[in-house]
C-alpha cells in the first residue's frame, strides 16, 4: 500500500538519492554533528551529508549514553529501580517515577490512596512545567539566542526545583513515588509556596511570548520547518507534544485517564502544521493547561494517607505475570513493561522511552532542510539522551 512505502526509512534513502542525483560525490560534505556538539542535547550524533548547506542525508547515531538501565533493572529489586528511573529522562524524574510506579501497581494490583494521587498529579504537572519551559529555552538557545531565553526558563525552573527539593530532598533526582503512594507527605507550607510559584508562572509565559512569540526571526526559523504529517506521526509512534502539534488528539492523560486525570478540567492544544513553531507553541499552551490542572489539584487535595497500607517497601515480590503501564510524560508516552517471575527482581524490565521513538522521524523531518534547521528540529523533538539510550 502506498502509505507503507512512504513511511519506511527506505523512503528516506530514496529521498536522499533524489536530492543527491546529479551531484558528484565530491560536492557532498560528510559532517558528523556530535557526539560532542553544543546543540545535540548531550551525546547524540547525527551523521549528516551536506550539499552546501542543505542536508541530503542524516543518520542519527545513539548509544553514547547507553547506561544499561534495563539490565541493571533486571538485576535489582523492584524498589531499587525507582531511583534509577529518575535518571532516565533526567529533566522529569517525577513523571518517570510515576510511570514506573504505575506499571508496578498494575502488575501487582496495588491501589493508590487519594491524597497520593493528588500529590502525583501536582508533582507531575510541575515537572511538565519545568520540562517544557527548559525545552523551549534550549530550543531557542539552539537557534542562536545567546542564552537569554534559556536563562529566563531556568529562572522559573529553579523555583520549581526548589519546590521539589523541599518536598523530596533533591532537585533533580526526586525518587519520590513508591508502589502504592508517595514517599513523604507535603512539608508544612509547601502548598502555599507551590501556589505562589504556579500563580507566578503565567507571568513568565507572557514574558516569554513577548520576548519571542512574535519575533520575526523565530517565526522565520520555525514556521514551516520540519513539518510532520499526521499519518507519519501516528505510524512512527510519535507521542507527546510532537504528535499533538501534528494535529492528532492523543493525550494519555485523556485517553487512559490514569491516576485521577479525569477529575480535572483541561484541554489538549492541537497544532495544524506540525512544524517546529507548532511544537514550540503547543508546549507553551500545554504549560497553560498544566497550570489549570495544578490550580484545581492544589485546591482539591484531600487529607489522608499517602501510602497504600498493603504496599511493601522491602521484599516486594509481585505474582508472576506481566504489565505495561504508561503515562503522558512531558516528552510523550513513557511506558514501563515489566515481567515478573515471582521473584524479587523483575524478569524483564523494559522502558518505552518517548524520545527514543520520537527520534525515528528525525531523518524524515530533516532531509532537504538546511543544517541550521536540523538543530531546530532536533530541539523541537525534545530528546533527553538518558532516555533515548537508557
Amino acid at each position, binding site marked *: 500500500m502506498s502509505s507503507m512505502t512512504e513511511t519506511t526509512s527506505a523512503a528516506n534513502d530514496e529521498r536522499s538519492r533524489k536530492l543527491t542525483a546529479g551531484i558528484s560525490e565530491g*560536492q*557532498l560534505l560528510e559532517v558528523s554533528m556530535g*557526539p*560532542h556538539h553544543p546543540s545535540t542535547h548531550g551525546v547524540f550524533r547525527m551523521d549528516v551529508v551536506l550539499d552546501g548547506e542543505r542536508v541530503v542525508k542524516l543518520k542519527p547515531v545513539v548509544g553514547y549514553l547507553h547506561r544499561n538501565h534495563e539490565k541493571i533493572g533486571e538485576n535489582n529489586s523492584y524498589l531499587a529501580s525507582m531511583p534509577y528511573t529518575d535518571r532516565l529522562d533526567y529533566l522529569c524524574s517525577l513523571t518517570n517515577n510515576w510511570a514506573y510506579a504505575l506499571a508496578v501497581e498494575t502488575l501487582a494490583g496495588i491501589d493508590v490512596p487519594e491524597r497520593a494521587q493528588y500529590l502525583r498529579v501536582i508533582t507531575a504537572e510541575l515537572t511538565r512545567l519545568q520540562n517544557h519551559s527548559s525545552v523551549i529555552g534550549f530550543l531557542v538557545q539552539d537557534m542562536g539566542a545567546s542564552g537569554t531565553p534559556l536563562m529566563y526558563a531556568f529562572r522559573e525552573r529553579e523555583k520549581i526545583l526548589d519546590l521539589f527539593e523541599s518536598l523530596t530532598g533533591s532537585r533533580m533526582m526526586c525518587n519520590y513515588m513508591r508502589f502504592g503512594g508517595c514517599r513523604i507527605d507535603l512539608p508544612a507550607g509547601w502548598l502555599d509556596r507551590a501556589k505562589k510559584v504556579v500563580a507566578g508562572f503565567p507571568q513568565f509565559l507572557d514574558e516569554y511570548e513577548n520576548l519571542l512569540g512574535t519575533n520575526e526571526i523565530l517565526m522565520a526559523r520555525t514556521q514551516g520547518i520540519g513539518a510532520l504529517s499526521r499519518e507519519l506521526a501516528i505510524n512512527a509512534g510519535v507521542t507527546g507534544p510532537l504528535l499533538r502539534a501534528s494535529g492528532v488528539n492523543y493525550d494519555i492523560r485523556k485517553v487512559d485517564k490514569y491516576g485521577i486525570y479525569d477529575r480535572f478540567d483541561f484541554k489538549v492544544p492541537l497544532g495544524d502544521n506540525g512544524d517546529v513553531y507548532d511544537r514550540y507553541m503547543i508546549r507553551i499552551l500545554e504549560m497553560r493547561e498544566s497550570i489549570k490542572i495544578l490550580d484545581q489539584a492544589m485546591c482539591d487535595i484531600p487529607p489522608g494517607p499517602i501510602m497504600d497500607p498493603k504496599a511493601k517497601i522491602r521484599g516486594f515480590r509481585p505474582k508472576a505475570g506481566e504489565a505495561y503501564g504508561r503515562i503522558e510524560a512531558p516528552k510523550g508516552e513513557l511506558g514501563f513493561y515489566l515481567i515478573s517471575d515471582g521473584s524479587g527482581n523483575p524478569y524483564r524490565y523494559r522502558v518505552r522511552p518517548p524520545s527514543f521513538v520520537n527520534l525515528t522521524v528525525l531523518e524524515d523531518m530533516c532531509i532537504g532542510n538546511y543544517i541550521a534547521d536540523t538543530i531546530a528540529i532536533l530541539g523541537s523533538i525534545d530528546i533527553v539522551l538518558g532516555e533515548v539510550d537508557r
Partner: protein
Amino acid sequence: MSGSYLTILLLLVCAVGFGVGPLVLAWIWAKAYSPEKPGPYKNATYECGLESKGVVWVQFKAEYYLYGIVFLIFDVEAIFLLPFAVAFTGLTAGACVAMLVFLFLLVEGLVWASRKGVLLST
C-alpha cells in the same frame, strides 16, 4: 597627501606589530616554561570528538558563487556610484537620470537573476 599614506603605513606596521608582538611573547613563554607538546591525537583535526573522516576539500556549493558574481558586479557599480555621489550636489538632473539608468540596468540584471530562481531560494 603623502602624509596620510605615511600614517596608513605606520598604522599598518603597528597593527601587524600588535598582532605579532603577543604571538612572539607567547612563543617565548612556550619556549621558556610551557613546552608545546604536539602529538598525533592532539593535532588531529577536530570533529566533534570523532576521527575526522571524508574529504574536507569538498567542491563547494555553486550558490555562494552566484552571490559572489552579483557582489562583484555591485562592487564595481559602487566604484562608479561613489564619484557620482560626491559630485551629486553639483550635477544636473540629466546626469542624475544617467546614473539612474545605469543603476536600473544593474538592478534589472539582479531582478532577472532572482526571477530565474537561481540566486535566491525561497
